């Protein structure tokens, strides 16, 4: 498993390389990229803050959870921090498995869990204002 929290731009190649295996015919890559609008507002850029030590630990747990639940081969997760412009990659999840169905399911699950438990926050900056986005308060850990 490969887990990374970084202020540097995320390039998929090393992560794909990390999870790829000769016995695994499916490799799913999810990229969460910065969108130019939200709730009818024109977004200028996003700023991500993280609790890096804890975020890494939680990403690791989310990956372990997926590895235990689906017959997948390996997982790589990376999240960017700092200021991100429109179109830049904020979140990268790569999952390999022998067959595609498990890789899609596990990848989907991983992305959802990240948004629930990993201590990373984004601030949306638009024309004339800014706000920290808050996800749903978590009850289950």
């Amino acid at each position: 498993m490969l887990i990374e929290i970084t202020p540097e731009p995320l390039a998929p190649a090393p992560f794909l390389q990390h999870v790829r295996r000769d016995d695994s015919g499916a490799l799913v890559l999810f990229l969460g990229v910065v969108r130019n609008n939200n709730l009818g507002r024109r977004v200028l850029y996003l700023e991500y803050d993280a609790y890096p030590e804890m975020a890494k630990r939680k990403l690791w747990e989310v990956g372990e959870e997926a590895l235990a639940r689906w017959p997948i081969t390996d997982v790589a997760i990376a999240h960017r921090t700092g200021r991100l412009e429109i179109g830049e990659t904020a979140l990268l999840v790569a999952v390999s498995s022998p067959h595609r169905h498990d890789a899609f399911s596990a990848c989907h699950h991983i992305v959802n869990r990240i948004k629930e438990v990993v201590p990373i926050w984004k601030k949306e900056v638009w024309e004339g204002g800014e706000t920290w986005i808050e996800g749903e308060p978590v009850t289950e850990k």
Partner: protein
Amino acid sequence: MKARVKFFAALREMMGTRELNLEVADGQTVSGLYRELCARFPRLGDYNSTLLYSVNAEYVSPDHTLRDGDEVAFIPPVSGGSGAH
């Protein structure tokens, strides 16, 4: 005893700092420390219903008892990834 309290995102901007080093009474709980801080910084209380607590980078329950040297964080609802949901 001492505790290091970390602030992130909206809380960091509100407090104007990433970290405070505080003297904490023996036997204090993590939510007790939060209430103490709310008395000093009333706007911190706005987050009361939505915060989670962490100690040494792990989620803990509000009644978790602090130990000397603990690293505490008050965690607002997280919003990683790119989309809202």
